[in-house]
């Protein structure tokens, strides 16, 4: 199972790196999908099966498609390569900030006592029934809040995207 962790991690990191560095927008989205699938595989590895499928359903099935549609509505659809954005001052500063963050976080995690103290092992077992009971039990208010939020986001997105059309007519 250790090998699985390393392979999946490599896939996820590769997907993330490609998603933010490739010049072609559509390629970026495809790399992002690779990253999403890698994260979903990690969830399966962590025995959070339900979250893994939710990840695929929502991120791969909905968010990625949404981004693709947004690209086709904004950019030229054939997806020609964008301008070369690397190696400017902005790039160096952004990369430096990110690298520093990575270094700081890694050092902090390595020095952390909790992470070192927790034993590695396969004790976690995801139970869909438990999640379901919790969702309609004690967590019903947050669930409904999320539902309202999603509805509001849906309506809001439609309103934002439609406004200019109405004006232009």
């Amino acid at each position, binding site marked *: *199972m*250790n090998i699985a*962790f390393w392979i999946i991690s490599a896939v996820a*990191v590769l997907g*993330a790196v490609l*998603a*933010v560095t490739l010049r072609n*927008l559509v390629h970026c989205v495809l790399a*992002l999908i690779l*990253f*999403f699938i890698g994260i979903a595989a*990690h969830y399966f590895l962590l*025995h*959070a099966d339900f979250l893994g499928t*939710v990840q695929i359903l*929502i991120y791969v099935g909905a968010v990625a498609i*949404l*981004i693709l*549609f*947004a*690209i086709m*509505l*904004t*950019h030229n659809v054939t997806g020609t390569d964008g301008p070369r*954005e690397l190696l400017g001052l902005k*790039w160096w*500063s*952004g*990369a430096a*900030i*990110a*690298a520093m963050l*990575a270094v700081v*976080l*890694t050092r902090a*995690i*390595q020095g*952390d006592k*909790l*992470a*070192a103290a*927790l034993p*590695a092992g396969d004790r*976690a*077992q*995801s139970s869909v029934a438990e*999640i379901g009971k919790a*969702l309609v039990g004690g*967590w019903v208010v*947050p*669930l409904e809040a*999320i539902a309202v939020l*999603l509805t*509001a*986001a849906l309506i809001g*997105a439609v309103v934002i*995207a439609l*406004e*200019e*059309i109405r004006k232009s007519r």
Partner: protein
Amino acid sequence: MNIPLGHYLILAAILFAIGLAGALTRKNAIIVLMGIEVMFNSAILNLVAFWHYKHFAVPTAQLFAMFSIGIAAAESAIGLALVIAVYRHYKSVDVDEMRALKG
């Protein structure tokens, strides 16, 4: 599984840094959004890793992750709608060109 929790945390940190780098360095608004998605996902990965190693007895962390995923979906929908609206206005999705507060 013999992977310690630290590995997952470091992986999530690296992914977060990659997402941050994308959000900071790229000019295209859609790629900035994608960088934010990467950061979201690495954070949720952290949550699930902690659930697996420490709080596996209760499903709370999974619920939290699910709500985060739902919020991320709403966020990306709104963000992309904004990008489309901005594109209609400026005919560009370059974040450096969106400076005017006036429409």
